[in-house]
């Protein structure tokens, strides 16, 4: 129990005295997972909207695959991504294994199904009459989608939170494709694993607290946006 208090104390001291390495690890976590979530949004929202609005043969199969993807284990994704990125692997010419880019790629694969599926559900649960009404008022297809997404802001922001939450807290893929290299690919989750095996439990607790505060802050901002837009 005292290790936890020691960890809380250490977390506080690390942040107050601005330990350079801790800030860098925290910043990298935010940047890697932030970029991964944003890129997932760029792909997942159009894809989810498309799937939500269209009907074609094999759609249900595709949707069920995406829904399964929401539960895909990060370690499996980490394994597949790292094998593909090996020097002598199919994508070895990119030279990005053990870099933050490799981590971003793995995290995109983890968050994409979540964001796509949430978007699909959000668009699909809107009243179909709304869509007809918008079109009847002379909106183009792009305008219609924009208005629909505006209407579905609440669940779409939930999609962002779920996607970001999945990747910032993920460790299996990050450690495999990033390698937990100090000053380069060490993020909060992989640092926690590393410090735990070095027996620095209070530092591991301190890092955990920083991670939880970070996740809370991001979600707090997103929740503010989500709830504010709801009231208007």
């Amino acid at each position, binding site marked *: 129990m005292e290790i936890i208090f020691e960890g809380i104390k250490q977390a506080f001291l690390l942040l107050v005295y601005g330990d350079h390495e801790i800030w860098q690890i925290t910043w990298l976590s935010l*940047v890697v997972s*932030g*970029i991964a979530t*944003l890129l997932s949004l760029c792909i997942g929202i159009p894809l989810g909207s498309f799937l939500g609005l269209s009907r074609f043969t094999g759609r249900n199969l595709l949707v069920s695959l995406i829904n399964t993807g929401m539960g895909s284990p990060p370690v499996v994704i980490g394994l597949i991504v790292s094998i593909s990125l*090996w*020097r*002598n692997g199919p994508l*070895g010419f990119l*030279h*990005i294994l*053990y*870099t*933050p*880019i490799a981590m*971003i790629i793995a995290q995109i694969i983890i968050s994409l199904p979540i964001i796509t599926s949430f978007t699909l559900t959000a668009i699909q649960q809107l009243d179909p009459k709304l869509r007809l009404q918008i079109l009847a008022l002379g909106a183009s297809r792009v305008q219609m989608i924009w208005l629909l997404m*505006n209407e579905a802001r609440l669940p779409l922001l939930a999609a962002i939170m779920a996607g970001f939450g999945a990747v910032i807290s993920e460790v299996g893929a990050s450690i495999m494709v990033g*390698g*937990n*290299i*100090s000053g*380069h690919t060490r993020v909060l989750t992989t640092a926690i694993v*590393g410090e*735990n*095996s*070095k*027996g620095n*439990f209070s530092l591991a607790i301190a890092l955990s607290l920083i991670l939880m505060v970070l996740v809370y802050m991001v979600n707090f901002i997103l929740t503010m*946006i989500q709830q*504010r*837009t709801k009231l*208007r």
Partner: protein
Amino acid sequence: MIGYVIFMKKVSGFIGILWVFAIGFTLGAAQAKQKEIILATTTSTQDCGLLDLLIPIFEKKTGYFVKTIAVGSGQAMAMGQRGEADVLLVHSPESEERFMAEGSGINRRLVMHNDFIIVGTPEDPAGIKGMKSSSEAFRKIAALGIYISRGDNSGTDVKERSIWKAAGINPQGQRWYQQTGLGMGQTLNVAAEKRAYTLTDRGTYLTLQKHLGLSILVEGDAALANTYRIIEVNPDKWQKVNAQGAKAFSDFMVSKKIQKIIKDFGKDRYGSPLFFPDAFKDEKLKMKN
């Protein structure tokens, strides 16, 4: 609606900033290509903090960027076999010899040694404390104790299997024998929680000692020697290997200055050194292992 537009503008600004970072990362990665080395090593050298001390010195001196991938010796050599690492720092002599024999590595050199120890709860239910023979101790553990094994093909794991073999016991599938598949640090924690016995390198044990509540029960057996060697991955076999960087790092590890640092490492914190430098000893005088 206006608020929403402003919000979207802010978001796109933020996206812009993140893109700049993404591009920065890409450029950084492309630039690092020539000057980076992948060092595959055992968990013990990483977990005790030795590499955290040595690698910055090397990077500063040579300008290379070292990517340390801390896995077991078995996995490190598997990475070398596929040309996925440039240089290995490992402690599994038998597997290393096989690795060299198949032509996967070049220039295998002794860097340092310490020893393996058998640790367990101070109550010592199997009564092995002070025994001189590791295989005798293992026989007693098999009869009266619980043993926690790495089970990950690491140097420690290979050593452990050789002791079981010497003891004439096949522990696989026995109720008193459990495998973690984890690194040394975590395996020690599991052993401590289960009040069990395990084999560990002295370095990792000393690093974690204060949290563990495990005592050293058997030490000093010649069979418990633990030697660390550096191997460069054979560039003739794998063109993508950074041979120059690998050589620079190996030379660095056996240089006088670094051997001196290894000699003193851990003295201040644990009262005794964690490793003994070996590079300047005559190979014939060195331990058989």
